[in-house]
């Protein structure tokens, strides 16, 4: 090969290495730099042979040191690898891994969202002498080697919506889906359909999608990744990262949002968040790691693409195999192949039979249900666990008998009765004419007994007492004890007068009496005044948050939160009655670490949902405020998005009624998953709902958002939520909602 070209390549390799290692001092890098410089300086003096020899040596040294440097990669270096423009991207994979492909989600910049590539592709498999083309649906983010219009793989809501559409297409066609996660995170705009809302929809649909899904992670940034990554098999490239938040984001939160975080802090955060492939494999959030060449795969690593092809085919095979039996010989061969041969040699049909499709979904549920269980403290004793297990079984049998078997007959019977009644009424109406006339004559105003007059002027229902009891709240906010006034934030526009705190936080329930602005209230206010907590049965209190990643300094903060609120996690789950209707309620409590959701909260929610499903009760989730996923739990937190969404999906598929109520500020992960996927979401007035707060939007997109961008009313006009309620009428509205949406048995199917 031409010497010039080879030296150029070496220079490029050096540039790449120094990009990856950033400003850090590294002996190997310095050595390479020195030797290459030396060579270039003296190159003109060498003869042809000498040159070849020198370049050979240099190349050897590069390979050697690259191998050495590979071992020195810090998590942040991996992040830099993943973000490097030379990193392989989805187009490269389509070209090199699949045999044939056609983009169907638009082309380059002519796409509804150029950051999202959707393609139909085929993988050829041999079957004897015949070649079979196996079709797959490819969905993934495209970073495009730094192409501006790709938006760095940050997907806008409509891009995710498009992805969702083609997932459904794949389901209809019964072909597997391969998703490739190359995203730093979703683009946090709230334009229709809304970042959070769309991700929630994606998760909800994927939770029940009846075709095999295999996901490959290269850059998995939080919610944006989850939007396409709820898969049966999750593979990860060895140099990729999968995290709850970008290290910069974590550092910004850690260091206080105002000033820019230092590189050291970012580096430290990257380490603490456990974002590498190895960490995630260890924690169980991915199934396998695909080995990349030293310092990460680049578009010219053809061997890597071959390996990727093998791995993705094998993963798909395994998913199919798990739910659909193979012939005994192939099964045997497959087991062998795991260690040695190319999986492409053994043919597995990827389209599933009807029963296998159902099995696939329940497998997927099992898979996610078992995740992150080690990331929380379960303080319950063995005895109580056994006991609850037993009670659960009994309830299961009970509800099976009552609702599945008896109800079937009852429904049929009542159907017949209804029909008969309707017939009778028709009969009555037909004959009703003359009767009706008689009735009219009867309605004469003179025919009133004189003693009825007494009725007009004497006290009705004396047992109620003369004074109607004033609406007083069971729980009164401690804020109402201060003798001070409070200014309503709408004073400038609505001319509200100052409110006296004892009035405002006592009688007015924190609502401005002039403009209706809702001041935030304590979660206890809702517990006692809306959910009748005094009479409720709280369960799973023994599940408590812990620090699964041993995130530095977090133990202390967690202990402080537990002490301040007296809670073990930011989630309270209980059974209660709302105006006489039994329901399972879960609350996300804002004062506990901002209402963030981690492994313990996720588990509590799932258990509450399961309880509601087994006992056939409506499930109500009240978000008193949530700032998102708890970043200190890293992917243990993020994984709660698909986990809880799956539980919700299962509950709703079983016929459950799931209501969500937002208050104060609800943002990020929870809204983009289990909160946002409810068909019935309501908000308390003056609450904010969104994917990312205004500060984050400014930082990530450079767009300033208007001051009222996240208001509940915007969410309502976008169709995210279904209604806005006054705090003082919450109980009444909830009751009404349960009745209208739940039907007569509160369990709508």
């Amino acid at each position: 090969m031409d010497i010039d070209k080879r030296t150029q390549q070496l220079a490029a390799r050096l540039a790449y290495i120094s990009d990856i290692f950033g400003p850090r001092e590294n002996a190997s890098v310095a050595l390479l730099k020195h030797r290459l410089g030396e060579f270039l300086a003296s190159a003109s003096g060498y003869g042809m042979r000498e040159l070849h020899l020198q370049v050979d040596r240099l190349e050897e040294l590069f390979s050697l040191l690259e191998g050495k440097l590979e071992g020195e990669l810090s998590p942040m270096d991996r992040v830099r690898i993943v973000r490097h423009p030379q990193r392989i991207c989805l187009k490269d994979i389509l070209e090199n891994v699949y045999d044939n492909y056609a983009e169907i989600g638009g082309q380059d910049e002519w796409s509804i969202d150029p950051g999202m590539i959707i393609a139909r592709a085929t993988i050829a498999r041999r079957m004897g002498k015949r070649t079979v083309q196996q079709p797959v649906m490819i969905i993934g983010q495209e970073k495009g080697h730094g192409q501006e219009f790709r938006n760095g793989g940050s997907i806008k809501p409509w891009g995710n919506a498009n992805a969702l559409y083609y997932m459904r297409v794949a389901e209809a066609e019964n072909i597997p889906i391969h998703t490739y996660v190359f995203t730093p995170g979703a683009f946090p705009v709230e334009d229709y359909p809304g970042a959070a809302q769309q991700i929630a929809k994606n998760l909800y649909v994927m939770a029940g999608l009846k075709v095999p899904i295999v996901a490959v992670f290269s850059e998995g940034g939080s919610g944006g990744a989850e939007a396409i990554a709820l898969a049966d098999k999750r593979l990860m490239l060895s140099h990729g990262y999968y995290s709850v938040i970008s290290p910069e984001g974590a550092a910004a939160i850690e260091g206080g949002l105002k000033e820019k975080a230092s590189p050291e802090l970012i580096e430290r955060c990257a380490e603490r968040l456990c974002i590498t492939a190895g960490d995630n494999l260890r924690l169980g959030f991915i199934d396998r790691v695909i080995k990349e060449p030293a310092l990460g795969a680049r578009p010219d690593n053809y061997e890597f693409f071959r390996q990727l092809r093998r791995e993705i085919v094998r993963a798909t095979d395994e998913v199919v195999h798990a739910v659909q039996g193979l012939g005994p010989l192939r099964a045997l061969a497959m087991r062998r192949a795991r260690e040695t041969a190319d999986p492409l040699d053994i043919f597995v049909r990827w389209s599933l039979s009807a029963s296998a499709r159902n099995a696939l979904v329940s497998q997927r549920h099992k898979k996610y249900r078992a995740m992150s269980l080690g990331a929380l403290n379960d303080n319950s004793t063995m005895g109580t666990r056994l006991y609850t297990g037993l009670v659960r079984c009994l309830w299961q049998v009970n509800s099976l008998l009552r609702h599945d078997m008896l109800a079937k007959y009852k429904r049929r019977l009542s159907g017949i009765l209804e029909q008969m009644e309707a017939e009778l009424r028709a009969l009555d109406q037909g004959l009703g004419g003359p009767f009706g006339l008689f009735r009219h004559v009867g309605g004469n105003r003179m025919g009133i007994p004189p003693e009825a007059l007494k009725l007009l002027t004497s006290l009705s229902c004396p047992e109620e007492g003369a004074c109607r009891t004033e609406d007083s709240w069971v729980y009164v906010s401690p804020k109402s004890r201060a003798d001070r006034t409070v200014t309503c934030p709408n004073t400038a526009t609505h001319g509200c007068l100052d409110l006296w705190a004892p009035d405002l936080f006592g009688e007015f329930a924190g609502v401005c009496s002039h403009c209706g602005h809702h001041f935030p209230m304590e979660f206890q206010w809702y517990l006692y005044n809306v959910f009748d907590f005094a009479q409720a049965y709280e369960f799973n209190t023994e599940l408590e948050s812990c620090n699964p990643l041993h995130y530095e300094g977090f133990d202390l903060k967690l202990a402080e939160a537990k002490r301040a609120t007296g809670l073990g996690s930011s989630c309270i789950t209980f059974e209660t009655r709302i105006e006489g209707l039994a329901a399972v309620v879960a609350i996300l409590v804002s004062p506990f670490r901002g209402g963030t959701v981690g492994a313990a909260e996720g588990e509590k929610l799932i258990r509450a949902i399961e309880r509601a499903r087994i006992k056939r009760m409506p499930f109500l989730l009240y978000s008193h405020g949530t700032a998102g996923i708890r970043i200190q739990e890293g992917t243990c937190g993020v994984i709660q998005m698909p986990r809880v969404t799956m539980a919700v999906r299962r509950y709703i598929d079983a016929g459950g009624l799931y209501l969500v109520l937002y208050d104060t500020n609800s943002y990020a992960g929870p809204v983009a998953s289990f909160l946002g996927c409810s068909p019935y979401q309501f908000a308390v007035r003056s609450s904010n709902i969104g994917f990312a707060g205004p500060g984050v939007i400014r930082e990530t997109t450079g767009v300033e958002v208007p001051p009222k961008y996240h208001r509940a009313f915007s969410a309502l006009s976008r169709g995210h939520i279904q209604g806005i309620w006054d705090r003082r009428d919450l109980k009444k509205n909830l009751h009404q909602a349960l009745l209208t949406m739940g039907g007569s048995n509160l369990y709508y199917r």
Partner: protein
Amino acid sequence: MLNVKEMLEELKASPYEEIEVVTPHTGVIEFVGLKPGDRVAGPGGKWNEKPGTLLANLTREKNKKPICATQKGLVTDIAAGLEGTFVEAGVRLLTIRHFLSKDEVIARILKKALYLFCAPERAKYYFVPEIDAKIKAGGEQSVKPREGMEMFIVSRMKRETPLAYSGPEGIVYAVYFQQGDNVDGGQPLIGVCQESQLTLIQDVVNRVQGEWEEQD
């Protein structure tokens, strides 16, 4: 015909507006160390969501409220003697000397050029709901008043009566009143620009843009 040049000269001779900052209500006043000659900024940000420079704090019933500048300008005169005392409502705290901006100069000149529809009596004025909605959606200039068109609601002594527009046809170029505030009889409510005047108004805008130099 309007002599724009003359009016501009006139405004250039006294390009300031003195804004008196008064207490909105009673309370204990506390200045924040401003001195005469200090510069203050008005509300900023794309939606005017950032308040202007803090001028003083007013505390009433343990509720501390900031008083912020509404326009940019120079602080000229501070009633420093009030520091820490209880003041009544409507007491002058300081004066801001505000140099007129281009938009304000245009508005002042236009006020003389446009047909002004004035309030017939002292009352509170509102737009009728349809017009209000139109203005909120498409700006003032989306409204085209005609003779006899019902545009306002006059609220006087808690009684509301409709008020019809009378004057030449055109488009609403400026609104001079705050909905729900008291307007004295004879004060202009809206400025209407006739079709034929459009070029003249463009001329005013161009001239001011060219000739008026904004100062801080």
